[in-house]
């Protein structure tokens, strides 16, 4: 079956345009939730594991025991929320859109690491944060779904 993709020469109907904008807006909103839950999960896990101490083992048993620590438990709950919202996002949005856009969590994690965990943020770190943000801005303007009929950018 041949699928006719819309081109820039074919003006979209008002309904199609609304649907396109609606999907892009929904994708951005869910992406923000994915970013937020990821940041909280990483922060809580880092804080909990720092209190537990270094765990160097390929066996999962010590990590399973660590789940009872409050910060680790919070981290695991937010990790579940992150996983579920990310799966939902991947059900319609491209992986090549989701990956770079949700990487904004790295920027927030670095800032939180500097502010709350007293980790050093050098000039290179700020440069990295700027480069990531520029990359995200390039991707976020593309249409999030290219594998279906509503293709385009």
């Amino acid at each position: 079956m041949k699928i006719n993709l819309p081109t820039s020469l074919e003006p979209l109907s008002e309904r199609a345009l609304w649907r396109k904008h609606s999907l892009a807006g929904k994708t951005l909103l869910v992406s923000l939730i994915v970013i937020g839950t990821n940041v909280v999960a990483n922060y809580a896990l880092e804080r909990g594991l720092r209190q537990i101490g270094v765990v160097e083992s390929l066996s999962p048993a010590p990590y399973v025991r660590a789940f009872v620590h409050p910060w680790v438990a919070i981290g695991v709950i937010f990790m579940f929320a992150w996983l579920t919202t990310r799966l939902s996002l991947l059900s319609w949005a491209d992986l090549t859109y989701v990956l770079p856009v949700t990487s904004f969590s790295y920027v927030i994690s670095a800032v939180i690491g500097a502010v709350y965990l007293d980790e050093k943020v050098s000039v290179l770190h700020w440069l990295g944060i700027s480069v990531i943000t520029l990359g995200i801005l390039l991707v976020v303007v593309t249409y999030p779904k290219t594998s279906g009929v509503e293709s385009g950018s």
Partner: protein
Amino acid sequence: MIALLVALVVIPGAVGDLLNSAGMKRYGEITDWTPRGLLHLCRDLLHNSYILASIPAMAISFFAMMALLSATTLSFAVPITASSYILETALAKYWLKEHVDWRRWVGTTLVAIGIALLSF
């Protein structure tokens, strides 16, 4: 030890992402966010072969990430795992048939470079 943990986070994580994306495209959008709906979702996803295959890959990546976080700092562990972005983009283009235009290639490359800069 650190290099092994990074590899165990990155490679199974990339495979798991591709399988998750393929599995969720087959499943469709999640519409019921109630606890009961989420239980049904878990049950349905356990019958999805792509999602099932992604579980061991993501589990390896998750436990390796926990070990990495306990052995290094957040500002090292989180950024270093982004090295799989370009590999995942190439695999998504050919395996998932996604349209990756220059903005996505340049954007993803910039994100990977930026994340690498964060690890210094």
